[in-house]
């Protein structure tokens, strides 16, 4: 019975079938020839290496194979990764209703982590990752403390503790204080986390003095991320941090000040409150991601950011929340003299122009790549009973008449994401191509799922394909000289059309070309 089901499964799932055939080919060859090499001929350190490449679950299961394998997994030294989301699909099968399922799941996850950490025998572990996204308030601090102490005792190089919940619930777990951490020093006979290279804490409240203590005792740290820590108030990330290359401080809602003085820092993300410029001494900072009120300040109060804006090579601006009032067109623009790549992620309304962003291109004379990703806010559509949305887009509205006229000869690559075929998009695209006459590559990614059931969108564009063709036609009109190629089924995106300098060859493009020609003004 079971076998029959498996056969059916294979018939219906060609990929699975192929995998099994490959696996069989891999193994049967030797089986037939009376297996001269068995896996047990390999020395234990290599077997442990192999176990280190599996998920913990698979590795632990090998303990049932034979006596030799019973304790092998306990010496895994590369990576221990616990993720309650990963397991969600596999377990829970026998839980009757979902609510009790989640409660059991939570208990089960904690028991699982505790069990594995208790049994682990290896002296060191390179990386420990724990993502527990279903914590709520049902936890004991001492449980989570013990995970951190495990990381300390095994002298991990990479540590991630992620307690975030999808709906934004903050569990308020507090990272152990200095006294608690110091008490562990005796046990490991070296500074706590002395080997640490990468530390990522999400929804973990860590005191400023603990961060200071850790940075002082981790001279090797290369990457630090503190996200959604409610106890972070006045944070200092200051030299000597000879190896710190990447820093992220995001969504710390009580942050009052941030001082960054790190000579070798290359990449930084700050998303959150408007604070005074944190970049005190960061001569090598070239990649910056900004979000929240601070990002707003970067765009609209450029004089407050002039000390570092000119050195940036890559800049990502996240404008993800609507503003309470209309934003005015600023007199000045940020100084972005070195900028090569600019990415804008913004929310917008379906009836507002976003021509303003052209001025950021103007502010970046050396810009090579420009990406803009739009997310339309759908709350304001005109359906009976829907809430009227009074909030404003996080950028000023600029009419086509008032939009800046200029030519930008360095801009070569343009990526347009989240464009869905609304009337307000056309002037922006037209103007963008007028501004950048030498553009070589254009990428469109038109999402569909998010807007699927929205009446306004349905009326605008019928199908994905239609919309792609529409954009190509639009581009042909703007720049008839651009040879064209439509890429389809690129796996990582929903739907991409690209127009670049590749000579047209495919016959499937003929229709599009014909359309493009017919749309051209005589």
């Amino acid at each position: 019975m079971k076998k029959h089901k498996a056969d059916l499964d294979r018939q219906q799932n060609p990929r699975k079938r192929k995998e099994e055939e490959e696996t069989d080919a891999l193994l049967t060859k030797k089986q037939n020839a009376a297996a001269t090499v068995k896996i047990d001929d390999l020395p234990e350190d290599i077997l442990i290496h192999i176990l280190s490449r599996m998920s913990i679950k698979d590795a632990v299961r090998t303990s049932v194979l034979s006596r030799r394998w019973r304790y092998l997994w306990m010496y895994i030294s590369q990576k221990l990764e616990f993720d309650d989301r990963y397991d969600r699909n596999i377990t829970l099968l026998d839980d009757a209703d979902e609510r009790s399922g989640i409660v059991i799941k939570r208990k089960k996850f904690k028991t699982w982590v505790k069990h594995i950490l208790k049994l682990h025998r290896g002296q060191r572990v390179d990386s420990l990752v724990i993502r527990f996204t279903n914590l709520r308030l049902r936890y004991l601090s001492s449980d989570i403390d013990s995970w951190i102490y495990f990381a300390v005792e095994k002298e991990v190089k990479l540590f991630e503790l992620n307690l975030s919940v999808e709906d934004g619930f903050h569990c308020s777990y507090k990272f152990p204080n200095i006294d608690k951490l110091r008490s562990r020093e005796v046990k490991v006979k070296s500074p706590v986390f002395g080997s640490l290279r990468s530390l990522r804490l999400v929804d973990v409240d860590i005191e400023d003095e603990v961060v200071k203590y850790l940075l002082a005792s981790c001279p090797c740290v290369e990457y630090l991320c503190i996200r959604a820590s409610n106890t972070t108030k006045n944070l200092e990330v200051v030299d000597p941090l000879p190896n710190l290359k990447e820093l992220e401080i995001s969504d710390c809602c009580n942050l009052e000040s941030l001082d960054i003085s790190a000579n070798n820092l290359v990449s930084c993300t700050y998303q959150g409150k408007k604070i005074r410029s944190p970049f005190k001494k960061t001569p090598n900072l070239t990649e910056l991601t900004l979000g929240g009120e601070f990002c707003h300040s970067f765009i609209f109060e450029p004089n407050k950011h002039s000390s570092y804006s000119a050195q940036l090579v890559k800049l990502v601006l996240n404008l993800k929340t609507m503003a309470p009032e209309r934003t005015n067109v600023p007199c000045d623009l940020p100084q972005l003299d070195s900028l090569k790549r600019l990415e804008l992620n913004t929310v917008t309304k379906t009836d507002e122009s976003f021509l303003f962003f052209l001025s950021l291109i103007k502010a970046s004379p050396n810009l090579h790549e420009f990406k803009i990703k739009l997310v339309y806010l759908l709350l304001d559509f005109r359906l009976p009973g829907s809430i009227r949305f009074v909030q404003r887009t996080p950028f000023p509205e600029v009419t086509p008449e008032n939009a800046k006229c200029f030519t930008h000869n360095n801009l070569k690559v343009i990526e347009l994401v989240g464009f869905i075929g609304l009337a307000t998009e056309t002037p922006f695209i037209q103007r963008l191509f007028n501004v950048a006459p030498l553009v070589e590559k254009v990428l469109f990614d038109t999402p569909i799922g998010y807007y699927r059931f929205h009446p306004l969108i349905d009326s605008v564009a019928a199908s994905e394909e239609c919309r792609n063709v529409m954009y190509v036609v639009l581009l042909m009109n703007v720049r008839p000289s651009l040879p064209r190629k439509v890429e389809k089924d690129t796996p990582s995106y929903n739907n991409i059309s690209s127009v670049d300098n590749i000579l047209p060859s495919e016959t499937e493009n003929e229709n599009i070309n014909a359309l493009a020609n017919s749309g051209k003004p005589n």
Partner: protein
Amino acid sequence: MAAETGTPTTLTLKSNDDELFSVAESAAILSVTIRNMVEDGCAGGVIPLDNVDGKTLASVITYMNGISAIPADEEKKKSYRDKFLSDKDFETLADMVLAANYLNMSCLMDAVSAKIAQVMEKKSVGWVRRKFGIENDYTPEEEAAVKEEHKWTFEGVETDDDN
């Protein structure tokens, strides 16, 4: 060294069954063991590799040449590794992981280990025993006890027909 003289330096490697192989120094130093010999100046003549047979060494050299021809692009290197290992049987993989360990080539070691791990993943205990020739020396009671201790690891895994 190669960079100073302008012409690529070639090393001669000797397997434990006395086969000789020429390989560009720039590719061979992917092996930390060989690199240390080069740096210590012991790479002038023939480098004997006592723990690697000719067949395996030929395979490793193919890999060395292939991977060092790819510029610093982790994705391309990964796809080369996947392709390189895709048609290898377990005996070859076992020889290669031993060679990679001896030659101290972490990227090959990791790739081969991952490949073997991938075969064992999500498979039932009986299947793994059969395929890899592992002899079960537990008493039934012991086996049941170990299974009970790690019961959760059997969720979502195919069960054995014979168990």
